[in-house]
């Protein structure tokens, strides 16, 4: 890892101004992606601005019909939260399936969403649930937030403060893990709220997380795994690598969607 300077601000304002002053600063959340990337010298920020001691970035609360999770809330805390398990059990189980126990103790929801790894789990939940990403500057709908591989709508110096998830009537997440890396080969989050059905896919799209509208249309008619019988997804725009071809992933997405819908209607 190349040398850098480290600051640990106490407020969002201080964190933003530390970034503005730095030559090439980066915010540090849980560090479970950033630190390995720096160890491989694929990133070499001049300054790390640690968000761990910034006030008001952690916590889970219900606000009306929305579940609001602070950006620095760790995956393990989302997974174990009775509030999350009650309001959006699919989100708790998604968090429980990220990485391994030690990674979940450090990794954060804000870090995951800001990094927008094309195989990360949280972006699919944010997109399918129609979440709002609240930053120190504005509120960004998930629909406008994810811009492609590792790209988001975040501007320089913009810090995710919290993520607000409207509570769905039914939701579930199913992922097929790469047996070695345990990252999603295809992860599908389905959510039904009123007559709206959304299906968001991670791990499979060559441009990152996306909505599978073909599956959404089929599920809007009837929210049942049977509605997906015979439905096929085009392989265009899907990843192909040594682990799975685009055609394989296209099929896998439908299979994961069926599993997710089965789980969602069972709850």
């Amino acid at each position, binding site marked *: *890892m*190349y*040398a*850098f*300077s*480290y600051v*640990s601000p106490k407020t969002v304002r201080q964190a933003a101004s530390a970034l503005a002053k730095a030559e090439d600063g980066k915010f*540090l959340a849980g*560090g*479970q992606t950033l*630190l*390995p990337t*720096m*160890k491989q010298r694929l990133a070499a920020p001049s300054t*790390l601005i*640690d968000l*761990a001691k910034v006030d008001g970035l952690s916590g889970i609360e219900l606000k009306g019909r929305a579940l609001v999770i602070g950006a620095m809330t760790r995956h*393990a805390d989302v997974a*174990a939260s009775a509030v999350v398990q009650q309001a959006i059990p699919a989100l708790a189980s998604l968090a429980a399936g990220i*990485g*391994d*126990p*030690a*990674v979940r*103790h*450090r990794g954060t929801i804000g870090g995951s969403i800001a990094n927008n790894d094309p195989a990360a789990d949280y972006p699919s939940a944010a997109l399918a649930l129609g979440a709002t990403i609240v930053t120190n500057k504005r509120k960004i709908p998930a629909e406008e937030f994810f811009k492609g591989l590792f790209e988001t709508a975040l501007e320089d110096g913009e810090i995710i403060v919290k993520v607000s998830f409207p509570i769905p009537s039914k939701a579930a997440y199913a992922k097929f893990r790469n047996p070695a890396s*345990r990252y999603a080969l295809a992860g599908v989050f389905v959510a039904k709220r009123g007559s709206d059905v959304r299906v968001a896919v991670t791990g499979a799209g060559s441009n990152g997380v996306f909505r599978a509208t073909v599956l959404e249309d089929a599920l809007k008619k009837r929210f049942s795994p049977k509605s997906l019988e015979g439905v096929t997804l085009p392989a265009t725009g899907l990843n192909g690598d040594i682990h799975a071809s685009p055609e394989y992933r296209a099929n896998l997405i439908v299979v994961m969607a069926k599993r997710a819908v089965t789980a969602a209607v069972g709850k």
Partner: protein
Amino acid sequence: MANITLTVNGKSVSASVDSRTLLVSFLRDHLRLTGTHVGCDTSQCGACVVHVDGRAVKSCTMLAVQADGSSVVTIEGLASAGGDLHPMQAAFREHHGLQCGFCTPGMIMTAVDMVNRKGSALDEATIRHELEGNICRCTGYHNIVKAVEAGAAAMAGGAQKVAAE
């Protein structure tokens, strides 16, 4: 350089460290607590697991400066001051939950964290799932799973039963 103060195995430690010093390097090279191992150095194998403020973390994927103000427990901090092994350590010895021993400190720290979070009545499926972030290249895990199950029971006060097996 940054000045940090933390508690390691119950003792207060202050040091001046380079910002890029990993927690595991700080523990091993500065404090000479070499029980915590560096295996893969890419946060996959779990040989470097320690407890930070009561939670298992991979110390190769955390900076020493991030532990400023925290309480860290390493494998050296588990046994009692008198030298009696922690029940989980004793169970690993009893059930031969190791061969070369390289992964063992991380396995034991993960196992103790597992009991702290999930309680002492652990079934095999839970143990295997919870060990997802700890890799052993010798044992095939079978005796590790047995050791964790017995160690968990012992932590709940069933130490004599385990010893009598």
